[in-house]
């Protein structure tokens, strides 16, 4: 009798690449809930539109590349990219903006490089940066978090009108002029002359918050929870996120300056504002475009932390996560080169040849 001939190992852990991706999607749920609570249904519209465009573009390219569409769609990588971009965009973003973003994410940044696993840059961040540079106004229009708005959020019809028809968002009982307001990061950056304490007490965005800005602090805590879940599930190791947060915290502490008027904000402020936790646990942990070894990831994360602090504190962009991640994606092979782990039986790490 002839038996089937396959090579070892003959057993493998049950699970597929798709499962890893699904875990990431599940882990965004707390963040989605927090965002929706503070910014309304627009967040969900973002996610749905991004997912539809993402899957659509992915399927189109797979068809053009003559690949098995369902097999590759089942790795859910396009869905993850869509979720990450959808969560990064301000709520109530026009539909065409999302379409452009997803086009750059899926088609340009991923499929044109060869598909999953071959992209040197984080696809979601490519999409985000393209939009941020091309459409700065739309990209910095965050609506005022609900608690500062009397708990009022745009209705579904108003939201759909804004997203698809470009209607102005009109909210009854809005306390602030217009529907958008500055984010905590912008307030901190634009602060001149006020002590941090004064700024916190003067501004309702801070005065009504527990740590670092109404809404934003809870969004960050929610993403932190999701991230801890992923670490527990061993989807990624602690190295990159923790070193990023540590580097960010250390720089913030150095430049806190005792809360003077030239202070750039406390470590807690930096940890719980903007896209910090989202970036730390969902963006820089993208395995494809990050450094490969544990030591490499520590360096990778720390440098991102430094860049985030520099960009968000000294530039005119709303936050620095996207730029920092892309710059370090560039540097990942370089980091890999110098952070090879010591192999068993070797005295020191093998010397690289030039």
């Amino acid at each position, binding site marked *: 009798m002839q038996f089937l001939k396959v090579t070892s*190992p003959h057993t493998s852990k049950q699970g597929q690449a*798709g499962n890893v991706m699904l875990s990431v999607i599940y882990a965004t749920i707390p963040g989605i809930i927090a965002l929706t609570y503070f910014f309304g249904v627009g967040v969900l519209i973002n996610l749905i539109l991004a997912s539809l465009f993402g899957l659509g573009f992915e399927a189109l390219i797979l068809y053009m590349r003559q690949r098995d569409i369902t097999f590759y769609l089942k790795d859910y990588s396009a869905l993850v990219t869509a979720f990450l971009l959808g969560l990064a965009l301000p709520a109530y973003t026009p539909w065409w903006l999302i379409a452009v973003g997803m086009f750059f994410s899926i088609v340009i940044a991923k499929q044109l490089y060869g598909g999953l*696993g071959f992209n040197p840059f984080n696809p979601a961040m490519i999409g985000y940066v393209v939009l941020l540079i091309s459409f700065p106004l739309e990209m910095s229009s965050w609506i005022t978090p609900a608690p500062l708005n009397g708990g009022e959020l745009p209705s579904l019809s108003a939201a759909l009108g804004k997203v698809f028809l470009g209607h102005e968002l009109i909210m009854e009982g809005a306390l602030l002029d217009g529907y958008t307001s500055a984010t905590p990061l912008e307030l901190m950056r634009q602060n001149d002359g006020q002590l941090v304490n004064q700024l916190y007490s003067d501004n309702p965005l801070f005065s009504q918050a527990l740590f670092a800005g109404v809404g934003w602090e809870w969004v960050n805590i929610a993403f932190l929870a999701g991230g801890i879940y992923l670490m527990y599930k061993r989807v990624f190791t602690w190295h990159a996120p923790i070193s990023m947060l540590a580097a960010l915290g250390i720089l913030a502490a150095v430049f806190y300056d005792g809360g003077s008027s030239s202070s750039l904000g406390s470590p807690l402020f930096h940890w719980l504002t903007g896209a910090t936790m989202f970036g730390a646990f969902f963006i820089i942990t993208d395995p494809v475009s990050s450094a490969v070894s544990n030591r490499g990831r520590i360096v990778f994360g720390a440098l991102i932390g430094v860049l985030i602090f520099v960009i968000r504190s000294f530039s005119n962009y709303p936050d620095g996560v996207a730029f920092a991640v892309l710059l370090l994606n560039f540097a990942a092979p370089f980091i890999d080169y110098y952070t090879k782990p010591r*192999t*068993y*039986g070797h005295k020191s790490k093998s010397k690289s040849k030039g």
Partner: protein
Amino acid sequence: MRQIWETPGGIHPEQNKHQSTGEQIGTIAMPPEIILPMGQHIGAPATPIVEVGQTVLKGECVAKPEGFFSAAIHASTSGTISAIEERTITHPSGMRALCVIIKPDGKDTWAPLNPCDDYTQLSKDEILERIRNAGIVGMGGAGFPTAIKANPKSNRKITTLILNGTECEPYITADDMLMRERADEILLGAQLFCHLLTDVNEILIGIEDNKPEAIAAMQAAANALNDERIHVVSFPTKYPSGGEKQLIQILTGKEIPSGGLPAQLGIVVQNIGTAVACHRAIVHGEPLISRVTTVVGQTLEKQRNINVLMGTPIGFVLQEHGFVSDYKQRIIVGGPMMGFAADNQNVPIIKTTNCILAPSTKELPLPAPAQPCIRCGMCEQACPASLLPQQLYWFSRSEDVEKLEEHNLFDCIECGACSYVCPSNIPLVQYYRASKGTIKLQREEKAKSDHARLRFEQRQERIVKAEAEKEAKREARKQAALEAKKLMAEKAAQPANGETENTTNAVDKTASKVVDPVTQKAKLTRALTSAQSRLERANAQLQTNIDEDNGSRKDALQSKIKQAELKVNDAQNKLDAFNKEHDISSSEPGTPQAKNSSAPSNDKGKDATSPALKKMAMSDAEKQAAAVASIEKRLGVATQKYKEAQEANTPTADALKLGVEKLEQKLSDAKAVLAQQANDVSANTTQPVSKNEADAALGAIERAQAKAKAKAAMTDDEKKQDQIASLKKRIDKAKTRLNKAKDENDDNIAAFENAYNKLQDKLTQIS
């Protein structure tokens, strides 16, 4: 509790050990056929020493080890050798190789054994020889000949013996059951190893903590033996803790240097099954003819461990356990992590077969189609060697050999942990195996081409050197000729005797062999300095290697240094000898022959000088006599050889015959010269010497000249005659050859004819 160390990486696959530990080690019926492959171990396959049709007894040697790195094979039951032929063997490649097939007679009669109650009475070499003759190899999987492992190089002091009872692969329980049932034999085997290794001060028995019964049994046996060196060490279950490197790291915290051996750390690791086999081989005299194998899998009715004869076909074992083939059936030899799929059911159980796994498709599903690598890094976390599997995967795909080696591909132990955890189901280990194969092939080819290039370069060098030497000789000969002329003139001015002619001849002869002593000395000095610099280089190399702690090369370098030292001494001696020689000869003025002759003899060292000097001191007549004697001797030998060749009818007979003829010719020549010389001498002595000195000198010159002329004329004639005679002979031979070729209608008729015609032409030319 002994300290244990943590190893990086590792995985925790489903154990699946309970299925086969339910009952004691069993046995099965006698198979209808025993298939004994000649290669069941690492190293050269054994050579069969039996013939088809021969009857053998159980335990009788059927194949002897081929060289040092090999192992003997024994009949595992009594019966008849039914065939010695190529069969598919138990090997991942499914290749065919030579096997001895035995048809059992069913009696299972033992051959007489050679037991030994007290092995301490035997010499170590004797014990090692018995282990080797018992065909014992590492039974954990690799099949390394045990006699070699138990006898490490003398410069290595082995202080730690590790017995590997880890058995980290899922499903396999052969070692587990062996430890439960034969703990005492294992420990006795360990003590035997200690006896062989002399300096062992601790025996560590490493067992994973998922085998509590085995640990208890070993502990009890250790307590009973009351040997303080024995420590039973258990550690957390993790795959692949049972790898030799990993086990050493867990138990001692040390790492074997890359490419090195445990012996470098003073450690020897043996599988517990090997310990039992050695014990039985020495104390009971039993060769390795059976082993404990786990038979497990959901397609079997009965799952257990059996003590099975080597060479039992796997199909028979399965059949005895109620095997029902599943859809897409796989039969795995070894465990699910590192075992390989057998080609068919006719492959036999061999010395390294620790498990036969016949899983159902549900039990071990076939690998899912591979998805793209997402660089999740799970493989990196699982790798026990701290490699970067995903990087190796990318480099393997792009066949980037340089990068692969830079990322230490060859430190991969192919444990399969990376493939196991890969969420994209990429068969990573396959990629590494393929890349390793490619790189090995490339290295071999490179070594070959390097060798060829070296040979070419050396040949070129030799040609240039030979050319230069020839030139130097020519120059020297010219010089010597000039000197000789001068000498002759001087001698002519003095009263001389008739030997002048001969003396100048001798001068000419020696001068032709002479190399200028100055260049000779320079050559020797050069040899010395180059040997010294080689020594220095080797020392420096050793130093750097010590710095990098590259133990594996250290030994090689040390031996190199010793060699270099010897060479330096040698060169120094030669130079000294030369200097001495040179002084002696230059202290004897007026004997240029001696001076010159001492130089070439320096090449062969001082000893060679004295015969040369003796030769010089001999008179011409004596010399000639000696030459005749030596030619006679050579002729005797040549004739002898020719006769032998003729009897044996070897193709070289013709050539030998030619040699004999030539020697005969030479002998007659030499005899003629000798006779001539004898005449000369007598003529010289009869010459009156009472004339005045000037007359004598003139007369001598005249005589010498006349004689030289006569001699030249005579030898010319002689030579011509000789030539004609030999040509005639050759023509005869060529003719017979031509005729023969014509008879046999040879392809070379034209060539023979041509040769014949040429010879004819030559003859007419000369005569």
